Every structure is written in C-alpha cells, then in structure tokens.
C-alpha cells in the first residue's frame, strides 16, 4: 500500500472529507482507543505553535502512540545549518508518521516526497492548514446536522487568511452559499472568486456586517491584523468595523453558530462568549477528535 499524506485540503476527495468527519464523531463518542500502541509519531514544529501542537500531541497520546519531536528549532541540528532534506530523511527513520509545521510554504509537500512515512501538514506559512479545515467542517456538520447547502458568512482578513481559503475549497463540494465581509485591503483574492464562479456557487461581497448575518448558518470570524495594512490610518479606520458584538446576534437564526480558528484578539467582543451561538471553544475540542481521525485514517488503522 502506498503511503498517504495530508498536505493540502485538495489532497482529500469529497468522500474522504465526509469519512474523516464520521471518524471524528466516532472518536468523540469513544475518545480512548489505543489503536496505535507501540507506534512513534514525530511532531516537528519548525515554527512555534501552542494550540495545533498540543491538539495533535493529545490526539497521538489518546491513540496510544508516543510522541517524539521539537517545538522550536533552537536546540536542533537545523540551527547548525543542516538542510531540511537531511533533517526529514533522518527523522523519517525514527517514526511511523511525521506531523509538521514550518514557516516556509511548501515545506510539508517537499517533506512528503523525501519521507518514507506519511506526513501531515500542521500549517505551512500562509499556504495550507488542512487539519484546521477538517475540524471546521466537523464543527459545521455537528452543529448543522450536515454539510450540504450551508449559508456561511466569512468575516475579516479574507486575503491572507489561509483557513478561509482552505475552508472555501472544501465547502465547494457541498453546495454552499458564501457571503464575504472584508475591508478593501483584505478582500478575497480573485483566484478564489474565479474558483467559485467555475464551480457555479453563489457568493456576495460586503464591506460591513449587515442584516445578511440573519440568514447565516455559520459565521466564520478571522483576525484582522495590523501588520497586513500598508496604511496604518486605514487599519485604525476599519479595525472596529469587523468586530462581532452580542447585540448583532439578536435577529440571527437559532441554529447559527460562530466559528473562529483562534487565537482571538478583539474581533469577537467578550460579551459574545456566553451566547449559546458562540462555538469557538467547542471547536478546539473537536480539533482533537478530528486529528485522531486523520492520523488513524492515514496510518490505515481505521478504514
């Protein structure tokens, strides 16, 4: 059997995406399944991350495997100038799977070509973060009862937000209706609009959060970062336009849920947290089950 990797969300077919969400539900119902007893998984974080790394390592531990690896490159041979190629070749001899994050885009794809064992991309720069996308999909499915025909409003940095781009690609399988809300500097890139047009999927673009929120099933918030703006005055002008407040949720649908890949800074006011429609902290729990599903599927211990 050839080894299977997860580098980009487009590596998985629609059927595989659905399958992962089903496996995640199975792991949620029974989160302690030592399917990987005796195996070793390398967790290679060439760039620091708290949430994603701990979520993966928790998933690995719950599956009964052991973790080796590093959470930054300071104490590794990478700091001595070893090539990425040599680091991956060596480590792939020590383990059954590699989970990696890297600041350089395309590094996990290259690793998957070098490594003897499957590689899972835990984020490569502004490119891809497929496990986040799959946990977003699992969260949508869990809260909406399915993935078909969802009305989603995406708010904030739609230009650089990799989670937005990957989620959009994945949802394109499911007849989704999109509304995009972003400042002029952070609009969804043309290539993604073209992608939706080619798929025949409807979308609307807006500059502000308006009454369209009342039709949404999912509100997907992202952080508008100061460093993305060339003009600091422009940032000051728009920063409060993309803040979600509890008062905006009054007319929203009862099934509506708010998702956010986190970390949040100020784009969701804290008064939203106690609203039952706030789902972003449940989303992080779903991340562990989704990652258990991804790892066990790629290693072939769950069909």
């Amino acid at each position, binding site marked *: 059997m050839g080894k299977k990797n997860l580098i*980009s969300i487009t590596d998985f077919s629609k059927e595989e995406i659905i399958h992962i969400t089903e496996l995640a539900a199975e792991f949620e119902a029974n989160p302690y399944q030592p399917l990987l007893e005796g195996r070793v998984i390398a967790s290679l974080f060439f760039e620091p991350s708290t949430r994603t790394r701990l979520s993966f390592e928790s998933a690995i531990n719950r599956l009964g495997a052991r973790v080796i690896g590093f959470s930054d490159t300071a104490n590794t041979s990478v700091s001595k100038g070893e*090539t*990425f*190629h040599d680091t991956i070749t060596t480590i792939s001899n020590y383990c059954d799977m590699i989970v990696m994050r*890297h*600041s*350089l*885009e*395309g*590094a996990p*794809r*290259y690793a998957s070509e070098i490594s003897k064992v499957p590689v899972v991309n835990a984020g*490569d*720069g*502004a*490119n*891809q973060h497929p496990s986040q996308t799959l946990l977003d999909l699992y969260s949508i499915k869990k809260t909406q009862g399915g993935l078909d025909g969802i009305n989603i409003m995406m708010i904030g940095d739609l230009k650089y937000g990799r989670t937005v781009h990957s989620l959009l690609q994945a949802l394109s399988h499911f007849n989704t209706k999109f509304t995009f809300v972003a400042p002029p500097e952070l609009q969804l890139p043309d*290539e993604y609009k073209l992608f939706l047009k080619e798929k025949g999927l409807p979308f609307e673009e807006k500059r502000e959060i308006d009454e369209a929120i009342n039709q949404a099933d999912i509100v997907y918030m992202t952080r508008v970062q100061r460093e993305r703006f060339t003009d600091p005055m422009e940032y000051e002008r728009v920063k409060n336009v993309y803040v979600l407040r509890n008062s905006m949720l009054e007319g929203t649908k009862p099934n509506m849920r708010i998702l956010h890949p986190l970390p949040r800074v100020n784009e969701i006011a804290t008064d939203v947290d106690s609203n039952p429609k706030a789902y972003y902290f449940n989303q992080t729990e779903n991340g562990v089950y989704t990652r258990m599903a991804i790892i066990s599927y790629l290693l072939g211990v769950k069909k």
Partner: protein
Amino acid sequence: MTTTDKRMEVRAIENGTVIDHIPSDSLFKIIKILKLDTDTHRMTFGTNLESKRMGSKAIIKINDRYCQQEEINRLALIAPMAVVNIIKNYEVVEKRKITVPEHIEGFVRCSNPKCITNNEPMTTSFDVINSDEIALKCHYCEKITYQKQMELIK
C-alpha cells in the same frame, strides 16, 4: 535586409536547428534555458537584426543538433512566437510548433520568497495553469507565478 538574404540566413547551415523570430531581449534567456552556453556544437547567434514583423529580432543557429520537442516547449515561457526550423541538407524539412507544456521542472524560480524552493537546494516544479497568459502554479507552495514575474534560475 532583403527577403532573399533572410532565407539565406536560415539556410546557411547544412544540418541542425534554426530558431528564428526571437525577441532581441530574449536571446540570452533562451541560450540559458536551452543550455546552449555549455553546448559544444558549432553555433551562431545574431541579435538586433531587422525584422519587418517584429522591428528587431534575434536568431540562433545550431549545427548538427536537432532540438527535441521538450526543449522547444520551454520557449513557450519566453518566446512563444519564435519559429523553430529543422534543417537537413540546407533545406527546412520541418517547422516545429511550440506548445505550452503542462508541467515544468526546474529553470524557473517561484516568485514567492517564502517558498521552500527558494530556501533549499532543490528543483522547482510547476503546473502550467493558463496557457493564454502563462501562469505557473508552484507544486510546493501552491502560489502562482505570472509571466511578468518569471525569473530564470541562474
């Protein structure tokens, strides 16, 4: 230069390949991507020649070497309007068409400075996604390099 002279130029080799109608400013790029700078065949390069169609053009004549279709297709990235003549016994026996390849390995740099290919000793790899205005999608970082950003690897 008269039409007769130009035909003379094309025919001036006995056997080999003549690449004509190259934009003058692309000559050195073509020498690079066809690796002619290390080739040992007898060759003639002409540039800033008069051309009715283009104003100014360059020409490459390679004796005793017949360029392969794969090599010719690389010209699509730089000089898609060039004409490739295969010469045998002083006659043009074939005009090879340049077709845009579906996939490109090496010789073009990814325009994304944060791409792994710009930070590791490795070969670049692209899918050609738009054959009208050529755009290359990096196999690694998935970013698109447009024709105007295209830079050859030295």
